[in-house]
């Protein structure tokens, strides 16, 4: 049409662009080859600096070139005087700024910037901090920049409250920001540390206890500040309950308690001349300086974990030298020292007793509650109230439901058991993608409750049938259990951890889906195994049982394996000790 402005056709434009690209590529390759050959010859001159700059400004992710550049800079540092070095590095910083504009998430550029900043004779940290500000205001989730910011803050001693204010600002503009919340969680304990609490009197004599390591105190925040944080984070999850970052931060606020590291149980068996030790966390007993003292005499013993699979385990066992405690008329005093942690536990084996143990029970330690918090009950109670309020408005919000469950557990795990189960049911319905996770979590809580009930009753029988268990956990807490009933659940395996039940005599696990018995390993007291209606299909699945010397009775009715030809003969060969097999 007349008068119409003529515009290059797309084909024309494409062609031009293609030529442009080819030209660029040629230049790029030539420069790259030149760089490589120079580096090979060990040349560190200005031209090399130029060449690498040219390449890196179009491709800042070329790690080898950054390395070469650092070699050149270090060389220049050695030959030039301080002012010149300062100038070179300042130029480097402004070059890096242009690289960051090309790719604000380039690993190479940020790493190099950190390197340069650290070597700069007179660093201008304020400038670096404002660079971080700018970068994070463009993309508040750029973790490279967060890392760099932490370095700048550390090097230049930016006041903690200023940094906290910065997170306030970022959270204010968009609270869906893990980085800011996380940064907050590292700053708060520094700015508002919890006032030191009196040491719990039950353990540790004051004379021997070491000064509190920064680790044990670094994660706590004073209560006044905590209340403010609760308010802030509530504003976030009431505004948008589907945003996870606020919930995660909330959970951090609630659950800062750490278990004290200690030996939680020592068990000694006279018949087997064996000692079993349980720790508060998985350890490698061979490397933590474990010392066994029997009647004042240090013993040379071999510690082994309950299952060859574990290098780290919360339960370790050792055999005492033959004859040391076998005489039932003798009394023995046993002490296990955990030298690394300056803690120990005594255990006395009295005359006439075949076994003995000494431990802190889960109820004494409030073991499972402390997983969430040691905060005052009143605070937790009011947090539970506001979560319940939110749940009324948003009955199907999974984060809210999950948090309510956690709060209920922190407050009164047994008292809230019914509500907890109901909430789990809702969770599985509203978030069916994660129903297996919720089932596992629910199993864990049910096991915790059962452990608590068992210990209140002061028995060594653990019974948790018909509770929809999908997984087993806290098995280290069951070291002393002699009789376990897991019938009518949905278990698929007895995991290697099951071998921690060192005192187990009777196992009832009828009506599950068990197909794997790996955990029935070297259970020296196990006599009776009930596995009716499970899913054991091959003889190999029963192989672990061969390591348990005392099995008398085995019920395998309703398992596929019973359909095998010559199964009786095979079993008799595999398990000669068994006198009573039900197929």
């Amino acid at each position: 049409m007349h008068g119409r402005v003529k515009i290059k056709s797309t084909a024309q434009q494409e062609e031009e662009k293609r030529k442009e690209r080819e030209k660029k590529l040629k230049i790029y390759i030539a420069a790259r080859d030149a760089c490589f050959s120079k580096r090979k010859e060990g040349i560190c001159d200005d031209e090399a600096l130029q060449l690498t700059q040219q390449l890196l400004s179009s491709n800042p992710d070329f790690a080898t070139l950054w390395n070469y550049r650092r070699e050149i800079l270090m060389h220049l540092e050695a030959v030039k005087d301080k002012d010149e070095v300062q100038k070179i590095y300042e130029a480097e910083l402004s070059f890096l700024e242009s690289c960051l504009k090309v790719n604000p998430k380039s690993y190479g550029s940020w790493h190099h910037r950190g390197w340069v900043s650290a070597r700069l004779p007179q660093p201008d940290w304020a400038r670096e901090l404002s660079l971080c500000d700018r970068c994070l205001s463009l993309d508040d989730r750029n973790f490279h920049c967060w890392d760099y910011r932490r370095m700048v803050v550390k090097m230049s001693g930016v006041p903690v409250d200023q940094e906290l204010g910065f997170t306030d600002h970022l959270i204010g503009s968009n609270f869906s920001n893990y980085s800011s919340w996380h940064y907050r969680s590292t700053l708060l304990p520094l700015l508002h540390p919890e006032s030191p609490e009196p040491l719990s009197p039950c353990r540790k004599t004051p004379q021997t206890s070491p000064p509190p390591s920064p680790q044990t105190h670094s994660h706590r925040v004073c209560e006044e500040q905590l209340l403010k944080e609760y308010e802030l984070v509530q504003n976030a999850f009431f505004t948008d309950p589907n945003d996870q970052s606020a919930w995660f931060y909330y959970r951090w606020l609630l659950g800062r308690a750490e278990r004290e590291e200690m030996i939680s149980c020592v068990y000694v068996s006279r018949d087997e001349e064996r000692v079993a030790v349980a720790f508060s966390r998985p350890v490698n007993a061979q490397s933590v300086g474990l010392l066994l003292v029997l009647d004042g005499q240090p013993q040379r013993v071999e510690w082994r974990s309950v299952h060859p699979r574990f290098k780290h385990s919360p339960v370790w066992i050792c055999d005492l030298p033959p004859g040391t405690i076998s005489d039932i008329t003798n009394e023995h005093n046993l002490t296990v020292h955990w030298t690394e942690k300056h803690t120990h536990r005594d255990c006395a084996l009295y005359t006439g007793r075949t076994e003995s143990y000494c431990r802190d029970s889960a109820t004494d330690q409030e073991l499972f509650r402390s997983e969430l918090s040691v905060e005052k009950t009143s605070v937790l109670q009011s947090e539970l109230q506001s979560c319940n309020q939110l749940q009324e408005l948003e009955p199907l919000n999974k984060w809210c439901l999950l948090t309510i469950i956690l709060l209920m557990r922190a407050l009164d795990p047994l008292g809230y058991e019914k509500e907890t189960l109901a909430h789990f049911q809702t969770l599985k319905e509203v978030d069916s993608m994660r129903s297996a996770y919720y089932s596992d979590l629910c199993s864990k809580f049910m096991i915790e409750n059962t452990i608590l009930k068992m210990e209140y009753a002061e028995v060594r029988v653990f019974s948790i049938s018909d509770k929809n268990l999908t997984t087993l956990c806290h098995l280290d807490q069951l070291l002393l259990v002699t009789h376990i009933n897991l019938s009518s659940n949905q278990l698929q395996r007895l995991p290697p951890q099951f071998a921690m039940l060192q005192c187990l005599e009777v196992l009832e696990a009828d009506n599950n889906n068990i197909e794997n018995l790996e955990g029935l390993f070297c259970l020296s007291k196990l006599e009776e195994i009930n596995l009716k209606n499970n899913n054991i299909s091959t003889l190999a699945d029963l192989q672990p049982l061969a390591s348990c010397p005392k099995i008398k009775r085995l019920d395998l009715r309703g398992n596929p394996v019973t359909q095998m030809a010559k199964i009786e003969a095979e079993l008799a060969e595999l398990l000669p000790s068994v006198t009573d097999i039900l197929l």
Partner: protein
Amino acid sequence: MAAEDLPSEFDVVILGTGLAESVVAAACSRVGQRVLHLDRNSYYAANWASFTFNGLLTWIQQHHEESQPEEVQDWSSLLEEGEELIYLSYSDSTSISNLQQTADSEGVEPTADLPRPSAIQGQSEASRKKISYAQLVKEGRQFNIDLVSKLMFSRGSLVDLLIKSNVSRYAEFKNVTRILTYRHGNVEQVPCSRADVFASRQLSVVEKRKLMRFLTSCLEETEEQQGEMNIVFSLFLCDQQLGDNLEHFLLHSIAMVTEDTPTEVGLASTRHFLRCLGRYGNTPFLFPVYGLGEIPQCFCRMSAVFGGVYCLRHSVRCLLVDKDNRCKAVIDSRGQRISCSHFVVDSSFSLMNFVSSCLPPQVSMVTVPPIAAGFPVVMMVELCSSTMTCLPGTYLVHLTCQSVGSAFDDLSPVVTKMFHTPETDDQETRPSVLWCLYFNMADGLDVEVEGHNLPSNVYLCSGPDGHLGHDHAIRQAQLIFQKILPEEDFCPPAPNPEDVLYDGESLLPTGGGGGDNSGWGEKGEETKENPQTEE
């Protein structure tokens, strides 16, 4: 440009440089139509214009003067066989009425020296300094005072068009930074975005949840809402059990409707507000730096780049219409006959009431519910100096409402309540008014652009409407364009300057992507210099 220089043949002649006309001009030029774009004023954008302080004073003066009746000349010598003459008459003076400046505007009285604390919610008192009327006049070039106060919805049709057509490259924009409302005698921030709701101190957590839930539910049209369509929006809100706070925010500041608006309309405008949130920051609005008058000029510039010819202080006296009632040509103010296939004209014929008032002081949008029964809802836009519309240290405040009485009657009670004027008691905490102008403007929405028994290829553009956004004008421009060129794309993306081929035969300006033809140059002098160059 001298009249003799004008070519005598164009495809489209457009009279008036208001927003709709300018968009039509850009759209037509862009697809290769030869466009002649005229404005009888010496400035661009007609009633959409932005003025420097001194420019505004001149404008006031013009409107106080009697408009002289134009002498009717005999153009019959220019008539061709079978043509008839239709004279165009202007009634611009009737689109603006009730012009009134406040008493202290003469500047000799000491009251004009009143200090002006910055924002409405009194910011630092220390920054107060005395600004006299004389200073306002002296620094007048730092002002860009819009005749109509509008904001751009960030997903409104204007923004979409600016992006689609690449016209956005000619302007800069600022976010409106907060939405406020006047309530119980206080100005409060309206929490509208997620971040606002999170940070709000005046809402309880439960209110926060209710608000967010309501807003989220508004984003989709649900059956539940359908069931409520037969009641008014304020009752609908009441039924949601949101509480007084939230109802106020939703009705006045988010939906921006009145008590008796139907639910359907209320929900639709809530939805529109929400969809605009977050595209460019925390509020749904943008404001063009240097004032709203920039926008029509940007489209004019695009038109000029694609060959549109521009003349200011140049008008059309009459249309030449053939027997089929089609406009064949126009006769311009210098007596030249210019033939055209289409004629678009600004509808300064009609006159209705619509009030706008200007008051010189962060960019805030404030909704003020009726202060008493019988009073209108007032929209207030407060512009800070970084929008390049006012002197540093001052704020420019626009108050707009659908008129009930005269602009002064409608708006001065609000002004008295919210600002420190000579009439109010010594309330130093409120911002002081330095200078103030009231006027009524005809509402473009009430102008009937169809059915004037016009020639079939003559199209009317109404002036600015009373709504906050620009949808009306853009829709109008699009309709006109579709009538002129039903087959063509409306404002397709403009190519990058380097992709445009200029050949010798082309009428186009050469080099730099255009904008330097004579018509454009004239404009450049007038507007591009006024910002901030003055000491």
